């Protein structure tokens, strides 16, 4: 079996790192957390690159790792925030994510999505996943993914008009 080595890693990483960061940022809604998530995912991927069979699968493989890393971090963050009140939580989330000024409306619309919706949309946009692949990752039906994504995008669209 043809496995990849660590030398190939850098080249492959170059093709995906921007999208990885965008994905993490849209998921975590905080630049520091996003940076940490990408670093961790890259470390895990780097160390295990020999377990990947072909370069073509790299993107989807590393996004799977990143997606899990973000999810884990979000769980940890929510555990930490369990005791904070609704208002504090909202303020904190709102304050630490800076978007280029002119795109504020998109960010506001993004804020209305639930964590699951953010995850699905971000995987579609940055991970290049289709509904089938997202379904497999989440272990839900591809139809359900599509309807959840439509609902999420519908919500955003309404706000952006």
């Amino acid at each position, binding site marked *: *079996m043809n496995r990849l080595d660590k030398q190939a890693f*850098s080249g492959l*990483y*170059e093709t995906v*790192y*921007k999208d*990885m*960061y*965008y994905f993490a*940022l*849209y998921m975590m809604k905080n630049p*520091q957390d996003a*940076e*940490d998530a990408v*670093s*961790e995912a*890259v*470390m*895990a*991927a*780097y*160390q*295990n690159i020999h*377990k990947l*069979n072909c370069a073509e699968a790299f993107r989807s493989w590393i996004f799977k*790792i990143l997606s*899990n890393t973000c999810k*884990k971090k979000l*769980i940890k963050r*929510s*555990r*930490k925030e369990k*005791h904070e*009140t*609704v208002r504090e939580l909202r303020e904190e989330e709102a304050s630490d994510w800076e*978007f*280029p000024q002119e*795109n504020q409306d*998109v960010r506001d619309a993004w804020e209305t999505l*639930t*964590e*699951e919706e953010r995850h699905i*949309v971000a995987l*579609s*946009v*940055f991970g290049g996943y289709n509904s089938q692949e997202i*379904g*497999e990752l989440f*272990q*839900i*039906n591809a*139809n*359900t993914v*599509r*309807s959840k*994504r*439509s609902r999420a*995008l519908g919500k955003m*669209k309404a706000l*952006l008009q």
Partner: protein
Amino acid sequence: MEQQERELLERLKQQAKEIEVPMSLRPGFMETNLQKMIHQKKRRVKQISILAAGLAAVIGIVCLVGVPNRRLEDANPVAESIRELSDVKMAESYADVYAYLKRQEKLDRNNSSILELFSGGGKKGSSMEMSVTSDGTNGNVDEFSQTNTRDSEVDEADVAKTDGRYLYVVTDEGDGVGVVDTKGGKLQEITTIKPEDCRGISEIYVQNERLIILCRRSTDDKDNIENRNAMATVIYDISEIDRPRLLNTFTQSGTYYTSRLYGDYLYVFSEFYVSTVQGKDNYEMYVPNVEGEILPCNRICIPDTDRANRYTVIVSINIKEAKETKDEMAILSDDSLCYVSTSHIYMCDSMYNDQGEKTTSIRKISYQDGELEGAAKAEVKGYLKDSFCLDEYKGYLRMVVTCSGGTKGGYDTTSNANTNSIYVLDENLKMTGEISGLAEDERVYSARFMGDTGYFVTFRETDPLFTVDLSNPKEPKIIGALKIPGFSEYLHPYGDGLLLGIGMEVDEKGVVASEVKLSMFDISDPADVKEIDKHVIERAYYSTAFENYKSVTIDAKRNMIGFSAQGAYQTYYLYEYEKGEGFTCNMEEGVTNDYNTRGIYIGDMFYLITGSYIESYSLENYERIDYIAI
């Protein structure tokens, strides 16, 4: 996808391009960074920061015998923490169910923001937090390992299983179960079993010449609107391993949630979400079905709460015969935690009462020989951290909960301090004894009930390990409290008089959880528990053991503690423990996906399984013998 949706996705993509990617992640820097991170001695402290005041490191033993207990005789105070409810309520007609869901839908619209917060933004992981009970005190050394389960007598499904010779492993693609022969330590793929119309395998069982596959069905989309019969339980006869024989496929609504196997009966739990309700007569749309038929209304259990947007569908199947489903029940619920003892299923929903305090609604269902019957229900104050926080023993249900103080009201949104409580409920879920007001401002991190004694860890700055004497159900008593820095997130009995804790160390200031810690407690005198050894894993700051007990392999008789932890790397660790010598690390292997990594032993071999990638190690010298990718 609609044109408009595509445009919006494209817009998101374009706008993101204006965002600057941090220097540290750019390709040129990443390579140096990777090296640096590997050698970095101490990671920047940024992990699970625990908001805590003051300094830690008070090591002392506090004995709390004589904490004022509320007894049954003081009737009134007890009534405060439990709301006794009538019988488990089954629907009398589909109209009942319809009316409930309609009401729910309306509430949903009115309260969407609050609901979103309270439901925690989605599912809490379909592989619920629960765990194991092998007490490791009797019997011989096992030849091979079993999945670490919440109750040692009740089996649970997992992503990898063994029958002592073959490994059965869910492939990375989730479309099949690879069967690998381990004879002589060599790994040889025998076959991959791929059920038809089945994809996204969640978990499997291997027991009594049966392979049971729990998966998502891939059916014609038209036939499967809203997950109506989306999940399948596929049973194979594997008495001849090279010729697996399909016995039957059972379907039910929703997506797989969890399952249990006890005796000859399998209990499959799925979650079925009802997104919209259109038309009372359109039963198919809002009533779950099993084997293609919608459930009779009297098998649908309606909650007392107003917030329930999904069913937990429970189906029982005799796996020996594998002919037809034995029984079925659907429970309307919100976000259930499920605990299964050897005689009952407990479905616990976390809710809020009018004062904004968290409460737990418990529905108890008996399941003898596959027959599901509502037995009792109750609502108590406080919430459960995981399924280890409740435990059935000699007919009594013992619980340890954290009570959030609720908000102070008006414009003051700050919360009152948390406290923790112990409850003992009888078989009708009536409160018989209670201790409340424990460990103010802290919350429960882990718990383990062992016979008449219960242990639980709360945390703020130090880790009090409380010991509670439950021998008299009317008068639970705190008999010991050990304070040490850090906290345990998972407790596991480790042979005679020992209790293992896997948790986190805190830094010198007691403020930030820093690194994964193993603790060994001497519990031979429950009233005087001591931490006799501890070990900190440098640079590891999270362990899968905290969330998923099935991921650990702990066996006192084999002297083996296996689990994965995450630092810069995701790593699987295998430790042994000797009194006087402490913990010794025998293996430290990098893995791709620590959540799905499993360690299984057979005889003198240890198998490390990460999806389709399997490695074998000798347990004599811990050297790698072989590997295979299936």
